[in-house]
Structures are given as structure tokens and as C-alpha cells.
């Protein structure tokens, strides 16, 4: 990722979205980090969006289970 491209990524709509999402999560990223994360964000977003495009997953149950009888037990 070139510095020029990274600079561009930190500005504009993608950069503002990344800045807003990090702020909403309370993560005090630096401007340099925001630029780097913004440069990578379109790739991550596209990969995550692709998970919704798999027909076999349309009616799949997630690999999550809630157990009503569960209790917290200390480990030591």
C-alpha cells in the first residue's frame, strides 16, 4: 500500500466510515492507524459481504448455542 494511496484512504467516505466505527467502539486510533485501517476496510467489507451471498447459508443455523442450564464454574 503506497503512502499516497494510504493518505487517500484516510479521507473520503471510507475514511469517515472507518473513523466513525472506531469512535463508536471507543477505540482511540491514531490518524496514521485510521488511514491504514481505511485502506484495508474495503477488502474486509467485501469479504464479509460475501458471507451473505452463499446460498447454502440462507437458512443455516449458526454455530452458536445458548444453554439455559449453564452455570459459571471457576477453573482453579
Amino acid at each position, binding site marked *: 500500500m503506497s503512502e499516497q494511496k494510504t493518505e487517500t484512504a484516510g479521507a473520503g467516505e471510507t475514511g469517515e466510515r472507518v473513523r466513525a466505527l472506531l469512535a463508536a467502539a471507543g477505540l*482511540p486510533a491514531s490518524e496514521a492507524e485510521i488511514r491504514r485501517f481505511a485502506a484495508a476496510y474495503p477488502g474486509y467489507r467485501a469479504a464479509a459481504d460475501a458471507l451473505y451471498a452463499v446460498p447454502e447459508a440462507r437458512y443455516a443455523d449458526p454455530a452458536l448455542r445458548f444453554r439455559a442450564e449453564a452455570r459459571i464454574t471457576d477453573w482453579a
Partner: protein
Amino acid sequence: MTQAPEAAPASAGAAGAALPRTLTEAAAALRAGRVTSRGLTEAAIAVADRLDPALGTYLARLDEQALAAADAADRDFAAGVDRGPLQGIPFGVKDILATADAPTTAQSLVLDPAWAAGRDAPVVARLRAAGAVITGKVSTMEFAVGMPDPEKPFPIPRNPWDPETWPGGSSSGTGSGVASGMFLAGLGTDTGGSIRIPAAFCGVTGLMPTFGRVPKSGCAPLGYSLDHIGPLARSARDCAAVLEVIAGPHPSDPDCVDAPFRSGEWSGDLTGLRVGVVREHHFPAEADPALEPAVDAAVDALRGLGAETAEVTLPYWDEMCTADIVTMACEALAYHQPDATSRWGDYFASTRAILAIGALMSGADYVQAQRMRRVAQDAIARLFDRVDVVVCPTVSRPAPRLEPYLREGAEVMELFSFIHTGYWDCLGNPVLAAPIGFTAEGLPLSLQFAGRAFEEMTLLRAADAFQQATDWHLRVPPLAAGAAA
């Protein structure tokens, strides 16, 4: 493979006795009276004295406690008390696992020391009960993710095959410690490949057990639904001996099922075993030129041992690589959120990058990743109806040079384009990484053996047969061979 090192002879111990290379050989030698646990432990300490300053393997050495545990093991042997193959064996523990007799840091400024103070994780308690000699807490990437950060006050882990290269992570110290002879086996954890990557880069064997086989409580979490605790050692047989001790349910881990592990027979005969060979995605143009011949030779060796081989493809490859990152990042952010908002700068740069991904994903993205995991689990189970074991390269390139990744703003995620491990964490199947040769530069190459859930013995038997027929797993870095001789 022009510079592949020879299998070094057994090294001289502190008392001048020949020391075994593998845990399994050491266990036999202890019982035959050829070595003592004190002798093994003193030799391991001597190697650490010589090499640890250069390799950054240990975060905390426990020499005195280890020698006391070794003496206790020797007294037990003398009294006829046999706690199993780990009794008297020098053993490293990744510093993300709680130990009662040493600080647990997760190699981080952030982890509250009170969390683990004075307490053993269930797997550590099981090691102690089995008589293992814990020599110290070994290096990890911060909270088992990312890369070293030279700005932080921790050693930079280095690879004994070439200290200018990375030993892999996050179980860096466990890999470098086994490869260099600082201990005969150790514990690592694997959320996206953190057992198998250092096993591959350090030329040793690493086993990620089935998710739910080993209790993961007492381990600082990275991804709750992805974390696996497992062994790194010289051989598949060594890994089986460790798994036998650490597997089994514990009430503190709701994911851990009642499925203790017992080793079976080591026949070396693979007649009838159906092996699926994966090539898609694993041989990119940038792959090391030695990789494909090494994999071909390994597959030929399996065939020569009686296995039937056929090329297969892994279903939902891209989706599982994405699901691993999404799941890990979101689960990690949930754990770290209070500290990340108040102590952001105390985290390693690459840890911050992973946590940021968690913030960039939505709750729906997380759930969708879990739906895809279910779909892929079903598909991989159907693949394992057709084959008993799947083999594929662990990495496409050898250990990378460290220096570029220590620069500010280094793009760490590009590493994962040639690391092929995260797919399996999402599925939960057991996978073993074993050495299969060397690059022209003398750096190790590695093959993964994957199997059906809770059928570790099938892939362990396949890897053991391969290791009976080859000696890649016994090769010792020249640096360590010189130090031990």
C-alpha cells in the same frame, strides 16, 4: 533442499550422557535408567543459558522449580511410581496459560496480573499431575495474535534455524524452544494457526486437537469459539503423549466435551488409509520452489506406506478464511473493549489492528460468520466420508525475515496470504503440522494432516508412519546442535 541439515546426533547432557531427541525416547530412557530427569533438565537449562539471549524463547525461566520437580520425578521413578510418559520431561508453557508459580503476562502490558495469580490452568494442573517438569513461561505474540512490537518491553522471538527470521506465532517460544532443545515438548494455543505456524517455521511437530477435546479455561482468550490448546514437540508420537494428559472435560469450559484421548497402536502401516491431497490455494506463484517437490515426496512416502491418495478441494475456503478473521476479531474486541478504550497505546500495533477489525464488523457479520461455519462443517464432514485424512501445506513460504515486520506501520496481514491454517480453526477439526523438508536456504517446510472431529489418532498414526519412514522431524538447527554438543 540443497542445504538441508543432517539429523544431528544425540547431544551430550550435563553429566556427559547421550540425551534422547524426542519426548518418547526420553520417557523410555528414564525408565531404563539411562538418564535422569535432573540430567535432562540440567541439559535443557544449559541450552537455555546458551541460546535464550539470542532467541527470546523465555519470558520467565523457572530453573530452581524445574530442578526441584525433576528431583521429585527421579524420586518417584526410584520408588516405582510412574505417572506416565511426561514424568520427568522438561516442558515449556506458553505465557498465555496460567501457572501458579510464575506470572502470566500474555506478553502484554495490559493483562491484569491478578487474573491468573497463584492459579494453574486445568491443562497446566494436568501436566504437573503427570510429572512434567515445567522449565518456564515462553514467548507468545501479545494475547496470541499479531507480530512482535519492538516498542514494547518484551523479547523479540527469533527462529533457531535463522535468528534473522520469525519463529512463527503466536506460540513462538514453544516452537523455538522445542527446535533448539530448551525443552522436549510444550503447550501452545491455536486460534488461526498459532500452534501449526511455529511448528512449520521451526521444523517441529504441532497438534491442534479437535475443538472441545482440551479445556481452554485458564488461557487468556483470543477467540472463544476458535481457541485450541495443544502440544508442540518433535514427533507425532510425542504430541499424542501430551494430548493424552491434557484432554478430557473440565466443568469450567462449557465447550469441552467428555472425550478423553487414548493413544492406539503405531504400526507404521497405512494400508487402506484414504488420503486427500489439497493443491488448490496452497501453491501460489509466490510459493517457495522447494515446497511442491517436498509435498510430492511426502505424498509419495504416504503412498509407499500403503495409503491411497486422491486430489481433493476444501469446501468454502475463502469463506472460512474470512470467518476466522471476523470471528477472532469480534470475540477479541468483546474481551478487550474496556482496556482497548482506555489503554490503546499499551497494546502491540498488530493487536490494535485486529481489534480494529472487530469494530469494523457488525453484529450481523459475526452471526453470519457462524452460519457459514455451520455450512462448512457439514461440507467438510461429507469430504471426510470420502477420505480419512486430508494433507496440505501448512505454509507456502518459509519463515519470513523479521525486520520488515518490525517497522512502524508494517502490513502484517499480508503474511496470511501464504499461511494456510485459519480455515481449520473455524471448523474445529484436528490438524497436525509436521516437517517435510527444507528450502534452499535451509529453512523448514511443513505439511498439515487434518482429520475428522475427535479422530486425532487417525492423523497421528499417518504422521507417525511418515516420521518412521523419514527423519525431517529429528533435524536440529545448526545453532542448537553447536550449543548442545
